[in-house]
């Protein structure tokens, strides 16, 4: 038993190879996600970081196969616990969703069905997958409501979503995701829509529950403060690509990709950042991903851009689990931007 658990711990729970997502738009195709790879071990927390429109949410919906009909995902391989998600039919996906892979959405105000009580929706989440009676599912739900920090769970049970605050609703969404003890929870900006004071509570709750239940988690966020507190591994997403992936320590202590560095400069550090000093910002805007995208998508905003940035970018590695997409190697990146006269002359 011990040995088989070790074996299972060594192979990734989720592995995604070369995922692309194309969206047909008026006058072309939007290449929203452009060939990304990532994997996740049991019990591990992967944070996908990036700004709006970088393809984070689409990636998570692609894993659940919940993209709309008009959106076309493709992956060379997408496996979850040995199940081939890329070729799984609707029935197989339905059995996984909510049972082995659960999802927590960004908007607690609209994520619950207004027509049914909280209790009905919790019970449904379990009875879709388990042959349990309503009473058993109810007992499980009440137990979980206690775990997610809801007091007077009995009375909340028969309430409707509109009678509850955003923070309470998000706790219920979390409890609903945990009803079947999933192996993987995908949380898509779970705290973005909440008050700042509630954000920290919900995040702590999520992380505690994840550790307690031994779940793996993909946490999608644009909040690097959140990442620093919870991530085992971090994937930085920019314009549909994972520009840098590594352990949380590597990303925060030795970031390599200029975009990652730019993001980290945007966080003020108490005692180090002078009062009134300019907070870092990354000049420019994200390029359009409609039509063919060649080379590095960040080059127009990058202070280390060179002529080779328009060519296909090699993936480089710094250590076994730290990889990044840049024309520069680690040494060049460590030196920072070159003086203008040292730059290669663009062709």
């Amino acid at each position, binding site marked *: 038993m011990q040995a088989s658990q070790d074996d299972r711990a060594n192979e990734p729970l989720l592995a995604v190879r070369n995922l692309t997502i194309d969206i047909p738009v008026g006058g072309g195709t939007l290449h929203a996600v452009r060939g990304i790879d990532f994997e996740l071990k049991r019990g591990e927390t992967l944070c996908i970081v990036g700004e709006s429109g970088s393809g984070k949410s689409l990636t998570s919906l692609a894993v659940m196969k*919940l993209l709309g009909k008009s959106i076309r995902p493709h992956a060379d391989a997408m496996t979850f616990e040995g199940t081939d998600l890329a070729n799984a039919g609707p029935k197989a996906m339905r*059995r996984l969703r909510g049972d082995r892979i659960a*999802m927590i959405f960004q*908007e607690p105000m*609209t994520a619950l069905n*207004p*027509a049914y009580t909280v209790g009905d929706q919790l019970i449904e989440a379990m009875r879709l997958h388990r042959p349990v009676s309503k009473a058993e599912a109810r007992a499980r739900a009440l137990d979980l409501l206690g775990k997610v920090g809801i007091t007077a769970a009995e009375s909340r049970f028969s309430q409707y979503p*509109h009678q509850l605050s955003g923070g309470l609703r998000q706790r219920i969404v979390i409890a*609903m995701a945990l009803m079947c003890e999933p192996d993987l929870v995908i949380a898509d900006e779970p705290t973005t829509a909440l008050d700042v004071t509630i954000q920290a509570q919900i995040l702590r709750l999520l992380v505690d529950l994840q550790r307690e239940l031994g779940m793996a988690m993909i946490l999608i966020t644009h909040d690097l403060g959140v990442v620093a507190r919870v991530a085992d591994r971090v994937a930085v997403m920019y314009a549909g690509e994972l520009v840098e992936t590594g352990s949380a320590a590597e990303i925060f202590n030795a970031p390599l990709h200029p975009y990652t560095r730019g993001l980290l400069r945007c966080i003020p550090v108490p005692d180090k950042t002078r009062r009134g000093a300019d907070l870092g910002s990354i000049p420019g805007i994200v390029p359009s991903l409609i039509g063919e995208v060649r080379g590095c998508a960040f080059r127009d905003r990058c202070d280390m851009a060179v002529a080779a940035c328009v060519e296909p970018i090699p993936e480089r590695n710094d250590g076994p689990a730290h990889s990044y997409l840049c024309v520069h190697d680690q040494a060049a990146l460590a030196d920072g931007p070159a003086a203008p006269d040292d730059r290669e002359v663009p062709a």
Partner: protein
Amino acid sequence: MLSFIARRLGLAALVALTVSALSFGLLFLSGDPASAIAGEGANDADIAAIRSFYGFDRPVIVQYGDWLWSALHGDFGQSYYFQLPVSSLIADRLSVTMTLGVCGIVFALAVAIPLGVAAAVRPNSIVDRLALFLSVVGQAMPSFWFGLLLIVLFAVKLGWLPPSGTQSWTNFVMPTVVLGYYAMPAIMRLTRAGMLEVLGADYIRTARAKGAGEWRVLFKHALRNAVIPVVSLAAVQMGFMLGGSIVVESVFALHGAGFLAWESIGRNDLPTVQALILIFSMFYIVFTFLADILNAWLDPRMRTG
């Protein structure tokens, strides 16, 4: 929920009282009712006799109270034209109209809701276009013409269905289709619009993320929310069908209440008109009341309103 029902019931009673006063007031709209009954060539003595016979010489408020009290007991007075109690005149007419109205709305809902759902699931598909075509035709084609077409085909050419009368259930098939088809387009389009909106909602994605199957998503999670405006519309249409199915009743020679109302207006038969207006209004009030209750059951957010 109970206090919501009680409040709605109180409101419905107030509306009903107002409507009864208005329909009683109709009597005086066309001038002196006694001289209207007596006719063109009547002398003053005749008119005075009629006035005291029908009690028009009493104070209006007493007349109203008397009329309302009788109406509550099912007595709507004598028909001027038939010289029969209005209540017995209306009773069998009403059963024809009720049968037709209920069948019509059931037919309309049975066609419109599945079609609206199917159209919303695949917008711009063949099904959606077919549904749009059917609803445009239904909206544009006059009921009498559609009724006549059906009679020509199914009664005259094929001989499958009787063209008119009320002898058996087969007599109601064509009128039901005509009346239902008239109500179908609006219900269908509203169902489609509601479903399209609801299917884009976050909670539908949540339902899918829970592992709910497509039918469960459509009919348990989406339709219940999408159908709320449809309930209100269907209630109004149901009331309209009962009072306004005159055309269909004429085409198929169904002697229903709508037809009777039309005849009675032509004959200046005020007690009959009054009674019918009161009854049709009561239907509207009852249906909107039931629709409110149904909506409150469907959508808990309405229970406080």
